[in-house]
C-alpha cells in the first residue's frame, strides 16, 4: 500500500472508527512509514484538543439568560394545554415546515389514488348498467 491510498483512512484510524481489517492494513503501513506516522501524530493532536474543547464554555451574548427566562415565563398556558394536546402548536408548525416535501408528495399520491379509485368505480358501475337484464 502506498501513502496516497492509506491517507484517507488515517483520520478514522486515530479515532478507532475503522473496521478491524482496514485498521490492520493502516497499522501495517504506518509501522514502516515516517510520513504517515507524522500525520497520525497531527491527527491525534486534533483529537486530544477536541476532547478538551468540551470543557470550555463559549461566552453567551449578554442578556441571553434574561431572554430565556422571559420566554419560558410566558408559557403557563402551554402547561394547561399539554395534557389535552400531545404537542404544542409551534411544534406542529415546525413539523409541517420540516417535512413539507414529504407531505406534498403524500398528498399528491393520495389525490392520484383517489382519482384512480373513482375511475375504477365508474368503470365497474358502467359495465354493470350495460349488462343485459336476465329474466
Amino acid at each position: 500500500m502506498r501513502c496516497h491510498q492509506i491517507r484517507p483512512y488515517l483520520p478514522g484510524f486515530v479515532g478507532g472508527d475503522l473496521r478491524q481489517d482496514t485498521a490492520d492494513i493502516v497499522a501495517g503501513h504506518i509501522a514502516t512509514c515516517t510520513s504517515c506516522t507524522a500525520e497520525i501524530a497531527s491527527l491525534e493532536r486534533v483529537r486530544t484538543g477536541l476532547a478538551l474543547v468540551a470543557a470550555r464554555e463559549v461566552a453567551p451574548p449578554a442578556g441571553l439568560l434574561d431572554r430565556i427566562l422571559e420566554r419560558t415565563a410566558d408559557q403557563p398556558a402551554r402547561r394547561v394545554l399539554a395534557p389535552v394536546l400531545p404537542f404544542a402548536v409551534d411544534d406542529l408548525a415546525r413539523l409541517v415546515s420540516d417535512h413539507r416535501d414529504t407531505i406534498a408528495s403524500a398528498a399528491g399520491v393520495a389525490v392520484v389514488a383517489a382519482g384512480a379509485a373513482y375511475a375504477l368505480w365508474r368503470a365497474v358501475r358502467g359495465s354493470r348498467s350495460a349488462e343485459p337484464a336476465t329474466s
Partner: protein
Amino acid sequence: MQVPQQLVESVRRGEPGAFEELVRSTHRSVYSLVYRIVGNAEDAADVTQDVYLRVWRGLRGFRGDANFSTWLYRVAANAALTFVKRRARGGVPTEPSELPDLPTGDGAEERADAELLERALATLPESQRAVVVLKDVYGWTCQEIGKQMGTTEGAVKVRLFRARQRLADELASAGVVVPLKKRKKSS
C-alpha cells in the same frame, strides 16, 4: 455539566424558582454546544432559547431513569441540527460570525490547541462541523449521530474523517504541526 437530581425533581414539581436555577446553571453549556453546531452567535442564541422552551414543555415527560444532562444535550443537539437543516434548505449562507470570546488557557500546549481548534470548528462546512462536534467533542457514537441527523453511519464517518483532516490542516497552517506537504515523502 452536572445537574443535581434534586433540582430536576424540583422543576418537575413546579417549585418556584427551580426552573430559573436550572437555566442559570446550564445555559452556558447548552449555548456552547449549540454555538459549535450552528456556527454563529446570533443563531446560537435563538436556538438556545428554543431549547429551553422544549425543555419547559418536555420536562414533565422526562423519565428520571435517564441522565438529565444527557437528555438536555440531546434536546439541544436536536434543536441545533434541525435549525441547520432548515437554514440549509432556505439557501441562507452560513457565515461564521465574530469569533467568540474564549477564556485564556493556562499556557499548556493542549489548551492552546483546543482554543485554536474551537476557532477552526467555525470554519468547517456545517455538516462536517456538526458531526465532529458531536463525535469528538461530546462523545456521541457515529450511529447516534446518524440517527439524529437522518443519515447513515457510513455517511457520518465520511464527514467525520474529512473534518478531522481539515482541522489537522488548520493546525498545520497555524504552524502548530508540520504541514504534510513539507514532510519528506516516504513511499
